């Protein structure tokens, strides 16, 4: 098990219902893609938030990540829609 901090922004946060959660992730969850598949099972809100990944973006430790990015203990992992600032 690895402890990670998850952050959610914009409509992902609204669907999941919390802005952040500290979770212990099973050893089989190795990449961001694995994490998304695992998070879908946590609640109906998570399933709604992660239903499709086409408009999903992820940052690990405040830098943009990909589905292949590996998860390490202590990571801060943020999920959010494509950015719309500026």
């Amino acid at each position: 098990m690895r402890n990670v901090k998850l952050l959610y922004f914009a409509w992902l946060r609204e669907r999941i219902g919390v802005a952040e959660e500290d979770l212990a992730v099973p050893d089989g969850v190795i990449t961001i893609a694995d994490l998304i598949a695992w998070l879908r099972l946590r609640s109906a809100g998570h399933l709604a938030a992660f239903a499709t990944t086409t408009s999903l973006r992820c940052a690990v430790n405040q830098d943009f990540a990909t589905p292949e990015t590996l998860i390490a203990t202590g990571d801060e992992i943020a999920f959010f829609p494509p950015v719309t600032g500026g």
Partner: protein
Amino acid sequence: MANIRVQTADFDIGAEFAALCVGRADIGGLGCFVGTVRDTAKGRKISAMTLEHYPAMTEAAMGRIAVAAEQRWELLGCTLIHRVGRLLPGENIVLVLAASPHRQAALDATGFLIDWLKTRAPFWKKESFPDGTEEWVSANDADEAAASRWA
């Protein structure tokens, strides 16, 4: 070197130009872009725009964008200010300012900085409508295309 800020308060455009230029005479041109809240979105009146961001990441991401601009153009300074929170139509959202010895570098860097801010900095906009409903703004394919010109 870049001056990067995320704030709820408005910014003073004239003061930002002055701060970038103070005490120096090696600048030949300054490019600037200011983004403001339009009162309509896809033909619908909006009553407000709320900007959310990812505080721990935002300034770092903006710093990386400024460094990318400094690597591409001869810049003598740049300023990136992005507001967050609830903004009304007509209010300022974002300021980009780039100073260079050369006009074209200042203008190109300004375009680059706003294109990358729109696609690489963790801000999200939500529009509020007069009937009380709210809607998250969808990312714009045109913005992505504009940003990828510089890739």
